[in-house]
């Protein structure tokens, strides 16, 4: 399954990986059906990912689109501009991703500023006559206003349907301005899952920004992340490695030098799959083929693989031993404090596998989890990256493991199944319902919070903090009315209306 950088349009997740957005069962069963680490891929695995049985139902609540993920990646690059080629409504995201950008910059100790997104503000007559003139005007405005190092263009449902030649305009203006002008095809309707938007951004970056004739920097490691706290620099210092954070909060030069790095890692395979695999395939930068760095076995294996690839085995072993000893006493205390507590994880796919591992390290029971999608395989196709198998093999099964793209109406029933004391979330929309049921949530806005050895402690402390909020949520729960009919709330099965296909 090669990544194809020849065309400007990225292949969607469902085409490449067989991604699904609705499924219900045991984690072990999903892992088996994914036929990833479980079986040799010579049997029954087609060219394009794995075919999983996916459920489909008549009722759906607002999801998230690929264009939003482009905003939160390409729109958060510090010296670039993102043009939203769309009617003004897509620009609503400017507000959301500005808030994330500003707080992300603050967390990373970078100067806080507004992001640079420009809407082409298409109107009715543009739907008839086309919007490329406005696109070119906005690209020129972006140049005049900011002299950015690169200009990205996000397409929209509307421009996809009317068929604007965005690639043509981008080529023309790239020649004129002398900087990369990069079309990112991310029409919301083109993919059922928003993570295709990550891939669209990464596709454009690899095609037009990453340096083709790199001078290798043997101590540089690409870290594909979002805006989280810099927990990598202190860790990598122990291995004599340097961090190159991409894509959010990076500069265009940081992106360009990705081809010079010694290796690529990520905090979540959902986010990093495409870019890491592409960098290896096209630029020879090895992707670290290991489980994600969550919990002891995952972090150990991840560090060892990184050390192997960068030839720093001894340093890594010393660091691993030192860290194990350092964190052990507090983790033992946290296990006591969290004894008998039940947690529920509802986050992106691969990230959830990691977080559940950390909770189990802390002795927290996890009987249920909801992931927003499931990739049966990642782009590398390497079984060492099978995060779900890693979870099941090292920490046991998760009896109620559901895939549902942030469908709040199903979340009620899922919580009833396992009655957790708290939930862990990353995207919005689910915690408000949990709160109305008296259940506190730990929102992991800082995606690095639970990462590595220290992450086990961090997550434990955060759970203690939010458990103390229970008073608030229980009081609220006693005084609110849910918008769901009693008939629906009384159904035992959150997937009642949803059938397999």
């Amino acid at each position, binding site marked *: 399954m090669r990544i194809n950088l020849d065309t400007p349009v990225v292949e969607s997740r469902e085409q490449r990986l067989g991604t699904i957005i609705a499924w219900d069962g045991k984690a072990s069963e999903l892992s088996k059906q994914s036929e990833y680490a479980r079986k040799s891929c010579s049997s029954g695995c087609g060219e394009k990912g794995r075919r999983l049985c996916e459920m489909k139902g*008549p*009722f*759906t*609540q*607002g*999801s*998230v*689109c690929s*264009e*939003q993920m482009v905003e939160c990646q390409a729109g958060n690059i510090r010296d670039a501009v993102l043009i939203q080629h*769309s*009617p*003004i*409504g*897509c*620009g*609503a*995201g*400017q*507000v*959301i991703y*500005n*808030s994330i950008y*500003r707080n992300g910059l603050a967390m990373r100790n970078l100067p*806080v*500023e*507004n992001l*640079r997104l*420009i*809407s*082409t*503000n*298409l*109107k*009715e007559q*543009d*739907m008839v006559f086309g919007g490329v003139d406005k696109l070119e*005007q*906005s690209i020129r*405005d972006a140049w005049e*206003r900011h002299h950015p190092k690169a200009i990205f263009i996000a397409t*929209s*449902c*509307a421009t996809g*349907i*009317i068929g604007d030649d965005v690639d043509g305009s981008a080529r023309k203006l790239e020649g004129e301005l002398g900087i990369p002008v990069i079309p990112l095809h991310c*029409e*919301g*309707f*083109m993919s*059922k899952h*928003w993570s295709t938007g990550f891939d669209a951004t990464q596709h454009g970056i690899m095609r037009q920004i990453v340096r083709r004739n790199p001078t290798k920097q043997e101590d540089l490691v690409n870290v594909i992340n979002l805006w989280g706290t810099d927990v990598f620099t202190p860790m990598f210092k122990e291995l004599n490695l340097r961090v190159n954070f991409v894509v959010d909060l990076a500069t265009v030069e940081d992106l360009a030098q990705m081809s010079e790095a010694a290796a690529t890692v990520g905090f979540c395979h959902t986010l990093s799959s495409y870019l890491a695999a592409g960098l290896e395939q096209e630029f020879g930068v090895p992707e670290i083929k290991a489980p994600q760095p969550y919990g002891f076995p995952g972090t150990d294996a991840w560090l060892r693989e990184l050390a192997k690839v960068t030839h720093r085995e001894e340093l890594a072993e010393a660091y691993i031993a030192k860290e194990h000893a350092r964190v052990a006493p507090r983790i033992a205390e946290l296990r006591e404090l969290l004894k008998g507590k039940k947690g529920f994880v509802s986050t992106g796919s691969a990230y959830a596998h990691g977080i559940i591992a950390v909770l189990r390290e802390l002795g927290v029971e996890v009987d249920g989890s909801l992931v927003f999608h499931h990739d049966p395989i990642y782009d590398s196709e390497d079984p060492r990256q099978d995060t779900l198998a890693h979870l099941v093999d090292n920490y046991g099964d998760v009896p109620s493991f559901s895939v549902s793209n942030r469908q*709040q109406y199903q979340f009620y029933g899922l919580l009833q199944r396992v009655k957790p004391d708290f939930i862990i979330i990353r995207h919005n*929309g689910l915690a*408000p319902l949990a709160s109305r049921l008296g259940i506190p949530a730990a929102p992991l806005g800082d995606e690095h919070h639970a990462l590595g050895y220290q992450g086990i402690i961090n997550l434990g402390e955060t759970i203690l903090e939010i458990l103390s909020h229970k008073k608030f949520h229980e009081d609220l729960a006693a005084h609110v009315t849910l*918008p*769901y*009919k009693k008939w*629906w709330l009384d159904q035992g099965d959150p997937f009642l*209306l949803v059938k397999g296909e």
Partner: protein
Amino acid sequence: MQQTETTVTGARTFPPLGPKTNSIQQVRYVCAIGAMHSASAIPWVIPITHCGPGCAEKQFGSLAMCNGFQGGGYGGGAVVPSTNISESEVVFGGENRLRELIRASLKILDAELFVVVTGCIPDLVGDDAAAVVREFQDEGVPIVLAETGGFKGTNFTGHELITRAIIDQYVGDYAGERTPGVVNVWSLLPYHNTFWQGDLSEIKRVLEGGGLKVNILFGHESEGIPEWKRIPQAQFNLVLSPWLGVQTAQHLENKYGQPFLHLPAIPIGADETSSFLRTVVKFAGIDPAPAEEFIRKEELTYYHYLEGFGEFYSEYFWGMPAKFVVIGESAYALALTRFLINDLGLMPGGQFITENPPEEYHEAIRREFQTIASDVVTDVAFEEDSHRIHTLIRQSDFGQKPPIILGTTWERDLAKEMRSAIVEVGFPASYELVLSRTNVGYRGAIALLEKIYTTVVSGTA
């Protein structure tokens, strides 16, 4: 589109900036489907969205969360059903999918009225959403449709489409009597105006204080659908905003023969609020005595607090901004400018109207600003693109002290650069938590003073 030269104060003129382009950097309004929030702002009403997978979430995250962290309420936020249109509905049409979603929504969600809104995709591929909704209406389901394709307008014009859809498709015809002393209020845009809940509450409180019975229509102080059903029975409509709601009131006049009173300025402070109440009471022709008694009591309280403020305002040692800049939608920009000029004696340093009001209202809005006070010259600039707005402000000379900026999150960097106090009073206000706070009427004016001058004082040392 050629930019007209923009004057701000009598003495100053903004230098001409290059011509306006289509570009909008840092949005200050969203598209028509964003007005789905006007549906969820009515108690027990739930919107159903027929659009791409990100539209509903984006509008919610933007308008309701990163704007005062207001929350989605009963039927908004992540509750909102969406067809999450995929490629097959683009190719083959999405009517069946919409029908399926409506039927399932009726099973799962408990609403007194569903409002179907459409996005760019169905409006481009030509789905006959009206036919689908009519099938349900024919079955007696309380459901209406507003076609709010993103390229067709803003969340302001979308608001009027939704309002009109409910009136025409649900409230329906009425030929009976009208009840004296009952008023329908059409004012701030729910959710987009960060303070809409508290403000509508205060407006209702003031009108009730004057002896009127108020259909406030949006927000938790509305009775919801039964109140909307009674719209035709009201004596008159009150449009309290420079232009939003005027079309609705004109429509109601045509439809029910219901007169309307249009007051462009939402009152802030005792002078404005007392005079506002007297005007409405006079228009209604009801006994003015209860209003006068209410005004007397309210002014006692108001001036008690204002006296306290006066000590601070007169002898605060460390300097006070003399000028202010307002950047926002016309209703708030006008109300705030009037209050700051007429009640506090501040000097206007720039007024920007940012919601792109329909062209036909520009002149009237401009006139409202020009006639605020006889001794102060004010004008407005109609600008939607923050880059232009910030450039204009940077080019201005504010004299010895930086102005107070009453604006949005987009002005945070500018304020830092200018060493100005920034008060986020409008969309997007991503660094304010707003629940019941109000800036209008008697109580809101005091709260506004507290907010502005807490910001000024806390920035000093």
